[in-house]
């Protein structure tokens, strides 16, 4: 058979037409797409059984309950836990990406001494030598934990000092400590009952306290209503996120919050809008108006609005004594819907920002925010899970700057998110006591040690974190008070043994001393206001990012905030 050129063309055309109507090209196209998704260099999610565990977030002292989805032993998703009566299923935005933090490029993987790498043995030897040569100071950014007890005991045993760094919520309660003698760490806000809240720059909807507590309360009682059950009045120099959503925004000149508090107090007393009596502020209404940039009429209106719906409470963003004095005038101290005492056992702390004595070494726990650098020439041993890079060398809270301050001589890699067994004491500014345990769900891929574990290795006679947690659980059971919040709410009195209580806590349950609806109030909490305090400037508003203690952000958060132009990350934090 002779094949002609014409036959060849016919055959080719037929083949092409047949191929087009056949499924082959479409199948090849489809398969190519699937193959190209599976190139060896394309990362694939871990395979393995998916397990769900419950724990508590320890990235900040609010200790929100987290539900952790685990695959192949690694956390692959974080969400809130609705059974926690404080956080009520909410988390801060950064919590949703927290499981990525352990793989952050700035994760500290090795011990660093100066500019070179070193070993744990060398760090231990250097710190033990420093302890033998002179006084040491231990700085804790998350006081009240079992680990804090280890650190405090170590400092006392070795003739050193234990100091803390607290957040703005606790700092704002410091004036009440001065007036009443009750430690600020034992006080909290009963926000569930006031009808009016006046926030003097506190970012109540943007990172103040436990994320779910006030945001959910506001959503239930204040949002979407022109005459809400809860009136949120925001005093802020700028239209912050809280101001944007508040029932009323009072724009004042930056740093004039104390003057406004004095002006409002004067109107309340002059017009007898409140039953309480107190010292009249020396500042006249006209002076307050001049300082704040408001009119005298608008200050009068504000005072009358506050007095119209009581209980009313003022919340400061820092240790502004004038705002504390306003609360005394309002009768919001030691009463329902105001500032309450939640604990009789708490003790006062010494702030690490206070002037330092002569020291041989400073040991900084990983819970201390990265931008804290002690103003001392002592040798600094700093635990951190992430390297925040060089800080500006400036101190916090507006104290005098010292160009010689340095982040650390020794950088010691600490456990990251969910890598450390720790307990979760009561969050700042809460009106009730809480307790939870955060189990180390993840094994650190790097050689890390917690600060408490480090001092335990130097002084084995100290109690360990685990034994203290065990003791605390036994104490809670012995008191037979409070309830345990898990899938079901169980009074502690109904539990069979301390072991049962401990088991539940290790599985992610939360112990709550009394219900938020009825916080414990002690009759012996009273503030004496003999004279109106000297005016003090308030610091600027802080928000989610400012309240975030880690020096780095979860990569997704950094990316999305940048893409959406929603927030400007602080320059010191890198993605």
């Amino acid at each position, binding site marked *: 058979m002779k094949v002609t050129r014409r036959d060849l063309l016919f055959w080719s055309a037929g083949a092409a037409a047949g191929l087009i109507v056949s499924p082959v090209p479409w199948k090849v196209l489809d398969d190519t797409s699937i193959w190209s998704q599976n*190139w060896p260099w394309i990362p694939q999610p871990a395979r393995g059984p*998916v397990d769900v565990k419950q724990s508590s977030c320890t990235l900040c002292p609010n200790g929100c309950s987290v539900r952790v989805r685990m695959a*192949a032993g690694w956390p692959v998703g974080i969400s809130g836990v609705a059974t926690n009566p404080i956080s009520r299923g909410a988390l801060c935005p950064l919590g*949703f990406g927290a499981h990525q933090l352990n793989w952050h490029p700035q994760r500290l993987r090795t011990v660093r001494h100066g500019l070179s790498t070193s070993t744990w043995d060398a760090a231990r030897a250097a710190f033990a030598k420093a302890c033998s040569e002179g006084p040491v100071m231990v700085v804790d950014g998350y006081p009240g934990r079992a680990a804090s007890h280890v650190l405090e005991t170590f400092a006392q045993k070795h003739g050193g000092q234990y100091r803390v760094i607290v957040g703005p919520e606790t700092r704002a309660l410091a004036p009440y400590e001065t007036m009443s003698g009750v430690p600020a760490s034992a006080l909290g806000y009963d926000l569930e009952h006031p009808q009016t809240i006046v926030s003097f720059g506190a970012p109540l909807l943007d990172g103040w306290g436990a994320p779910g507590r006030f945001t959910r309360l506001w959503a239930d009682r204040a949002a979407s209503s022109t005459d809400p059950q809860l009136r949120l009045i925001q005093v802020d120099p700028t239209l912050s996120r809280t101001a*944007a959503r508040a029932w009323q925004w009072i724009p004042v000149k930056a740093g004039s919050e104390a003057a406004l508090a004095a002006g409002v107090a004067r109107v309340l007393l002059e017009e007898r809008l409140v039953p309480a009596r107190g010292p009249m502020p020396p500042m006249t209404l006209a002076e307050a108006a001049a300082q704040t940039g408001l009119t005298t009429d608008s200050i009068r209106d504000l005072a009358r609005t506050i007095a119209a719906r009581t209980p009313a409470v003022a919340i400061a963003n820092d240790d502004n004594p004038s705002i504390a004095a306003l609360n005394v005038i309002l009768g919001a101290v030691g009463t329902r819907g105001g500032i309450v005492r939640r604990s009789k056992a708490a003790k006062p702390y010494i702030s690490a920002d206070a002037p330092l004595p002569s020291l041989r070494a400073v040991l900084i726990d990983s819970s201390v925010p990265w931008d804290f650098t002690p103003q001392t020439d002592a040798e600094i041993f700093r635990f951190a899970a992430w390297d925040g890079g060089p800080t500006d060398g400036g101190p916090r809270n507006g104290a005098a700057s010292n160009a010689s301050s340095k982040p650390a001589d020794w950088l010691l890699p600490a456990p990251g998110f969910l890598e450390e067994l720790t307990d979760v004491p009561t969050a700042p500014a809460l009106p009730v006591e809480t307790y939870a345990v955060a189990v180390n769900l993840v094994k650190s*891929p790097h050689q890390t040690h917690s600060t408490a574990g480090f001092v335990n290795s130097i002084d084995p006679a100290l109690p360990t974190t685990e034994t203290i947690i065990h003791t605390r659980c036994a104490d809670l059971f012995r008191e037979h008070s409070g309830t345990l919040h898990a899938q079901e709410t169980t009074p502690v009195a109904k539990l069979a043994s301390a072991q049962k209580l401990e088991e539940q806590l290790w599985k992610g349950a939360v112990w709550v001393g009394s219900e938020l609806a009825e916080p414990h109030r002690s009759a012996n909490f009273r503030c004496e206001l003999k004279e109106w305090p000297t005016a003090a400037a308030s610091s600027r508003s802080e928000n989610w990012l400012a309240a975030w203690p880690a020096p780095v952000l979860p990569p997704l958060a950094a990316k999305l905030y940048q893409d*959406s*132009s929603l927030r400007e990350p602080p320059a010191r934090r890198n993605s």
Partner: protein
Amino acid sequence: MSARYGMVIDLDRCTGCGSCMIACAADNNVPVLPKATARTGLTPLLVRKVSNALEGTARREAFIPIMCMHCEHETPCVTVCPQQAVEVDKATGIVMQMPQRCLGCRYCMTACPYHARYFNWWDPAWPAGMEKSLNPGVAVRMRGVVEKCNMCHARLHSAQEKAAALGKREIDPADYVPACVEACPTAAIRFGNLADKNDPVSQEAHSPNAFRFLARLGTEPKLYYKSSEAWVRALAESASGPVPENKSSEKKLAEVQHG
């Protein structure tokens, strides 16, 4: 009975925290690409800040989460796709994007009136080790395809599997909640079946302050918004939908107000 899943987003409750954005991206294995910019990055859900363009105490701001609106009628992206990589799921009403079929022509991105679609310009990549934190329920998408919000379809699959294991045909609504809805700390984003008149979300979608962006186009989006503020509702019919406050919302608002 087929469902029509949709959302009602109460803008009076949105504080602009961004939890929804981060939860969405984490749940859907969105890569963090250093080279990506706001224009070239992947953001299935983006929270925009808008203002009423006034100054002083008269100024008002709001936050608007923007994602795929899951248009029901004449869905623009479905109409233009030459690959049938996009379709409206008859059982759920979800506009599905199938990356395996996508050729990357980006017609759908052009057609989408909400700018809610994103193109994978690069191979997905994470810092070393971070791939261990990926959600195993969601496949990683390859370079060269378009992606968008699919209402956390992996969560729907899980709910369906759970229902099937129990011998049920219908899923328990509590088992299927998208990540953004779950993450919202003020419950501003609510999710439900718009086809069910008894569903609270369906009822809320017909409340007086509810509106949809660019409703005049007639695409019947299944995302409803709510706001008690007239200036926010006015943005819904601006020329190209909501735009970020730092770009030209003032201009758009002026266009609306002055015709």
